[in-house]
């Protein structure tokens, strides 16, 4: 059979041009045959019963022939109907699963985070009044600088969602006061357009951040920030060869009493943190549980140092380097792969190094230097995003 004819037959199965015989017509045709045959046998002298029996014997299975004929005319349509129906059922099933998973993931994430927050004693949101005064190092007020307030969440980094974080900007003013509502577990981060000055997790109050501006920056060039401030602030050398660590393991048991577990670690030590089986009953759905360790120190930029994907809330291990930070903080976050939504909380578990904490004397200094100008029309947020610390 030619290819053209095959296609023609296929189309004829989908849109039949002639009306195929019904079951009744097939049955009538076969019954007529049997009646004719029986009449002939009867005319030859057989009784009606014998004639009919003989006619049926000569014919074979009437039901089988009827089925064969019906399938001959309707089989292709029936198969196509089954295929289409099966496809529709499959599509509906996929949609239903997608809707269910989306709903369940969101609710599971929210429920798990709420449960965990309650378990570690962190709950409702707080209002943080913030007053910002920008000054140069000598205390001179600085104008024409944009300042952003970032309720800092566990998403950044590695979960960078800057579009959710930007709250407010100051322009052409050097002093601004506002109020930020954020979860108690968050930290408030204050940045200029391309730098980072972290106010840390603060109670309500008034804080001052100072930036140092070099004269050429005022000519309208965009700036690239070199985060030397923290290094200078803490007087640690910026060198890649500082790592001289030894392995050490800390086990953290969640959900069993207070979690204030100060660990005094030697400086420059690589530490493995194991999150053991918890007693928190949280439905994770298909979320991923991330264990993150962040090194931090007073008023200085934070830095996620390690994380691990924990498929279930049973056990997990994160390895972290504590290079020059005075403290490290344990975080736990849920990441929903389906919706790309991340939610995290800070666990009150800190790792204290033996290095004396930085004094933080004087205003925090950020050194700015000229860099690649931003593309025309780029938003301050976009520009800031391009210069975020990795």
């Amino acid at each position: 059979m030619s290819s053209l004819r095959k296609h023609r037959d296929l189309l004829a199965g989908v849109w039949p041009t002639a009306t195929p015989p019904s079951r009744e017509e097939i049955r009538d045709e076969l019954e007529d045959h049997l009646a004719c045959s029986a009449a002939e046998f009867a005319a030859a002298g057989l009784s009606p019963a014998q004639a009919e029996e003989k006619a049926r014997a000569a014919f074979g299975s009437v039901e089988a022939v009827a089925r064969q004929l019906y399938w001959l005319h309707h089989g292709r349509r029936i198969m196509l109907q089954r295929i289409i129906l099966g496809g529709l059922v499959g599509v509906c099933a996929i949609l239903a699963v997608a809707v269910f998973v989306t709903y369940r993931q969101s609710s599971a994430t929210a429920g798990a985070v709420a449960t965990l927050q309650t378990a570690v004693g962190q709950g409702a949101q707080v209002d943080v009044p913030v007053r910002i005064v920008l000054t140069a190092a000598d205390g001179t007020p600085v104008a024409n600088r944009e300042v952003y307030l970032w309720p800092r969440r566990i998403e950044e980094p590695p979960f960078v969602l800057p579009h959710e974080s930007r709250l407010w900007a100051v322009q052409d003013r050097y002093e601004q006061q506002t109020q930020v509502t954020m979860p108690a577990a968050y930290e408030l981060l204050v940045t200029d357009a391309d730098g980072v000055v972290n106010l840390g997790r603060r109670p309500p109050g008034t804080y001052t951040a100072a930036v140092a501006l070099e004269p050429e920056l005022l000519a309208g060039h965009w700036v690239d920030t070199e985060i030397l401030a923290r290094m200078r602030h803490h007087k640690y050398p910026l060198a890649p060869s500082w790592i001289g660590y030894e392995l050490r393991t800390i086990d953290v048991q969640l959900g069993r009493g207070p979690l204030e577990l100060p660990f005094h670690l030697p400086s420059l030590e690589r530490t493995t943190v194991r999150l053991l089986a918890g007693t928190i009953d949280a439905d994770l759905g298909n979320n991923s549980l991330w264990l993150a360790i962040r090194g931090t120190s007073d008023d200085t930029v934070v830095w996620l140092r390690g994380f691990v994907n924990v498929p279930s809330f049973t056990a997990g291990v994160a390895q972290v380097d504590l290079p020059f930070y005075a403290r490290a903080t344990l975080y736990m976050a849920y990441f929903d792969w389906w919706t790309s939504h991340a939610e995290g909380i800070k666990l009150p578990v800190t790792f204290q190094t033996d290095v004396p904490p930085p004094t933080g004397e004087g205003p925090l200094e950020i050194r700015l230097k000229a860099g690649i100008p931003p593309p025309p029309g780029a938003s301050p947020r976009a520009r800031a995003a391009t210069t975020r610390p990795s």
Partner: protein
Amino acid sequence: MAIDVDWLRGSLQTILLQVIAPQASYGYEISKRLRQRSAGLLDLNEGSLYPALHKLEQDGLLTSHWEPTPDGRRRKYYAITPAGLRQLEQKREQWKTYRTVMEGLLGDSDVQPA
């Protein structure tokens, strides 16, 4: 001698076209004509006739219509279509060629068993 069923299966549609070509007919009558014209050598199960008839109709080589019978039933008559006639003519030509070839190959009766 009965005819090889494979030969019959391969030629059944052509035979049916040939039987129906002169005059529209119904299933039982077609079956009867086949028996008569083959002198009883075509020992065909009557039920196997109908799938072949319906296939010919589905392929457009036969057409059908219903007529009432005297005893109140209805009867399906098959008639050959122009396409069926063309097909029959082609098959006839093919058969002639085939017969010539086969007679040339098998007609010699001088072959002796070893």
